């Protein structure tokens, strides 16, 4: 029994090695897709109507299928399992043999489009788990749920066309996106506000771009978007996003958000009917850029998320005193220190014409008669008296320091933009007439009955203290 130790090690190791070589070889010869293809072949042979059909079915080679899309430098091997994808004979077979539903592949031939262009998933994978990429497969684009699949249509088609045929959901999402005022805070193509993140390319960001901490269920981008639209602060606790969506609207917006991709399909694949996007009216622009905060614009409201009062910008008394020039300054320069950002072209990407359209829309609500003139030039204000009056009447809403702020329904009176732009008359008229639709009462009337001198005193105090606070 000499050297039996090494000989035994050699024998056992070699046998172990051989066994595992055989296992590797078996896995190589019989990959997952092969079982599907064999079953598919059996199915075709069994269902063959005549000898010729049976012969054809028997002649189908069992091999790895690959659609190589040279335009994208990617290959889809999905048809290795989804082998009957364009075979009408298996229209009613079970998955994965079943023919593609609908008439989509008549216009989108499989060998030109592949699968993942629309459905996402990992096209190069040859097993179900990694191809569908659900769960922890380290692939950023798992197969898109069919309820969101229309987002892929927008890769090539415009919303106008989609709304007429086959893409109602995504077109509806686009409409919602504009009506809900998303661009008031988010930029797309460099147009929009600055409060939120720009949305360009958000639809194909990798999963790690999103914070999945609070997402319930699958950690995928569509789930994140959907749950985020349902309740932004449940997903991102620090979010200041304002959305009021009902029922399926969050799904529709999710579909739309998924279309905001940073990549573009090759030109040969794109199919758009219009050259230029249609021009937008003032009202649409108002909804897109302003309505998220200002709503209808006739009521001022205290915003729980932004922690300040958002002024009414379309009530008659405001419009009476604020002329177009005034409006243009406010819109273009914004309000420093508030969420109202500057909307001039360099900052927001809105064109001059767009701003004019918005002003035109706002101004269209202006009453015909002008405000009653205020004899401001004839009176001199007394700062000390004004201070007493301010403390008695104004501080309750605008705050002791006149800066508005958290839990105060009045706005900040000392904002630099306000003090720069608003002349004493504007203030005086506002104090006298109040703002209907807001909590600002007409101090010149009713029980307050401040006379013009009192009002001028208050104005003097506000102006004076603003100066000092600079």
């Amino acid at each position, binding site marked *: 029994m000499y050297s*039996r130790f*090494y000989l035994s090690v050699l024998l056992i190791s070699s046998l172990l090695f051989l066994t595992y070589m055989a296992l590797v070889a078996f896995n190589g010869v019989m990959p997952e897709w092969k079982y599907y293809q064999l079953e598919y072949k059996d199915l075709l042979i069994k269902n063959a109507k005549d000898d010729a059909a049976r012969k054809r079915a028997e002649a189908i080679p069992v091999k790895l299928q690959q659609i190589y899309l040279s335009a994208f430098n990617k290959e889809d091997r999905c048809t290795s399992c989804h082998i009957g994808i364009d075979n009408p004979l298996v229209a009613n077979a079970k998955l994965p043999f079943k023919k593609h539903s609908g008439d989509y592949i008549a216009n989108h031939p499989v060998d030109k489009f592949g699968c993942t262009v629309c459905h996402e998933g990992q096209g190069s994978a040859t097993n179900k788990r990694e191809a569908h990429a659900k769960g922890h497969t380290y692939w950023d684009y798992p197969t898109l749920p069919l309820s969101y699949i229309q987002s892929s249509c927008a890769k090539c088609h415009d919303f106008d066309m989609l709304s007429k045929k086959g893409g109602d959901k995504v077109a509806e999402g686009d409409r919602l996106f504009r009506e809900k005022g998303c661009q008031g805070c988010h930029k797309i193509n460099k147009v929009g506000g600055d409060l939120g993140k720009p949305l360009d390319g958000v639809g194909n960001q990798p999963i790690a771009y999103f914070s999945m901490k609070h997402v319930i269920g699958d950690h995928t981008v569509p789930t994140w978007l959907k749950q985020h639209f349902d309740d932004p602060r449940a997903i991102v606790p620090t979010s200041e996003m304002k959305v009021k969506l009902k029922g399926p609207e969050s799904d529709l917006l999710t579909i739309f958000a998924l279309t905001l991709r940073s990549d573009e399909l090759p030109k040969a694949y794109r199919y758009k009917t219009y050259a230029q996007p249609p021009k937008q009216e003032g009202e649409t622009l108002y909804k897109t850029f302003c309505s998220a905060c200002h709503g209808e614009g006739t009521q001022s409201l205290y915003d729980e998320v932004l922690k300040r009062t958002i002024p009414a910008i379309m009530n008659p008394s405001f419009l009476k005193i604020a002329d177009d020039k005034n409006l243009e300054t406010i819109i273009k320069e914004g309000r420093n220190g508030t969420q109202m950002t500057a909307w001039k072209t360099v900052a927001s990407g809105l064109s001059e014409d767009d701003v004019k359209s918005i002003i035109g829309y706002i101004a269209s609500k202006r009453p015909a008669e002008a405000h009653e003139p205020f004899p401001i030039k004839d009176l001199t204000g007394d700062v000390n008296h004004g201070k007493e009056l301010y403390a008695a009447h104004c501080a309750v809403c605008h705050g002791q320091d006149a800066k508005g702020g958290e839990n105060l329904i009045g706005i900040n009176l000392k904002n630099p933009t306000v003090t720069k732009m608003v002349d004493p008359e504007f203030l005086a008229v506002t104090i006298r007439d109040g703002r209907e639709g807001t909590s600002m009462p007409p101090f010149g009337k009713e029980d307050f009955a401040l006379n013009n001198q009192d009002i001028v005193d208050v104005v003097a105090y506000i102006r004076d203290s603003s100066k000092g606070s600079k």
Partner: protein
Amino acid sequence: MNDNGQSGLARLTDNLKAIGNTFVGSVFRNGPPTSDKTRAAAIYNNFFMHIQGVKTHINTLRPTYTLGLGLMSFFLFLAVVATGVFLMVYYNPSVENAFKSVKNINFVVFGGKVMRNMHKWAGEGMIIFVLLHMARVFFTGSYKNGREFNWVIGIVLLILVYVLNLTGYLLPWDQLSYWALVIVANIMQSPKELTDSLNITRFFDVGTLSTEFFLAGLVPGKEALNRVYMFHVMVLPMVIYVFIGIHFWRIRKDGGMTKPEVFTAQESDSGYVFPPQKTGGIFPTYKTYGLMELAQGKTPAVDRDVENTVMSWPNLLVAELAVLMFTLAVALVYSYYVDAPLKELANPLIPENPAKAPWYFLGLQELLSYSAFMGGVGLPSLALLGLVLIPYLDRELYNVGIWFTDKQGRNVSLEAFVISVIVIIGMLIFAVKFGWLRNWFPDIPQIIITFVNPGSIWVGFVILWSLHVIKRTGSTRLGAMAMFVMFLVSYVILTYFATELRGPNWEFYWSKDQWPIH
């Protein structure tokens, strides 16, 4: 016409008939070995075998002495080279295609996934086995008595194995490799910390220089991938072939494997050798062979312990073959079940959190979290320097070839083990719980942190403790032993700590389950 009167054509026919024998005979000069003479010839007449002695000492064949660790490292290396060549068939080193080609190796290449796994695991296995081999050589005192320089070569090989593994890590171009390489780029940048504190970065920016040399920039990019690929498949392998060659050659020239001064063959040894051939040898069993008797200096087993040597053919060769198959089989089985990681495509905009270096560098990354320069350059250099110096500072020839030298050696090692475990863990707990200097004195100059941090304190402690052991026992061997044990223990503990217990933002977590989900 020749002597026996055959015609030329008849001779040609005869030669043709004999061509089988004459050809094989011209390749293998001696035919199948049947006697000790031919067995010896089989070794020394063969290009591939003559690196080994004709006769092998029984001690070498005892699996309990070498544990086959060096051989396993080498066979893992062979497996890595073979699988590496096969991976090159399908791999494409470009930013656009690297990730895709690795995916394709996984998905559509016959046996590709196992091939890649094997390349990965055999490569990383080399780190473990080379370290274990080094530990074996150290604890049996095999770096002494003429073997000093081969120990240094071994350290060079260890470094090469690290660098080969590291360069391979970038090639898949996924998130894991990309961000690991960002970390490594920063480690290479870390001499800046020192040059900045000394205010000489303007003249001597060695950090930037080395980073740009390896990555063609300060962050891994397009060029970096090409460059790293070139190092991985071309430069480093060539270098390591040379050093492996020297390493093996020196084993022979330095006197073969170490063995105890007094050696007694045991009954159980018969399990490791074939029965000796009693007949037909030119070498008497009490004598070694041939020219080696004339050679000067430390030649293998000349007239010493001859009765305990056996013919290398077949004893050594069977043992080697067995270890080869054993190594390959274990590597294959492991590769069959455990997949090499492949994460998402590299995205320079979205960092992995935590971005971790490959596991074998995580011990360094832990030290790095205290001081970039010390963790990245200072302490590793010091550790390597210490390892290199060991055979020159400890020259005691007492009990070479015996594990842990003697009872006192075992005690000193055990003691060093216990103390280093306690100190290291204690220090980590302290650093995690109370933070370090900057947490207490926010304005402290960086240079102080560079020199006073848990890493450098630990190294200082190791040096002091070793000196203490030398002083106490009067033996440099025991001091070296304490130092080596402490080095190994800190490497293992720090690596484990940083791999398993450090989570996002390099904060402490008891397990990965507690990591906040990003």
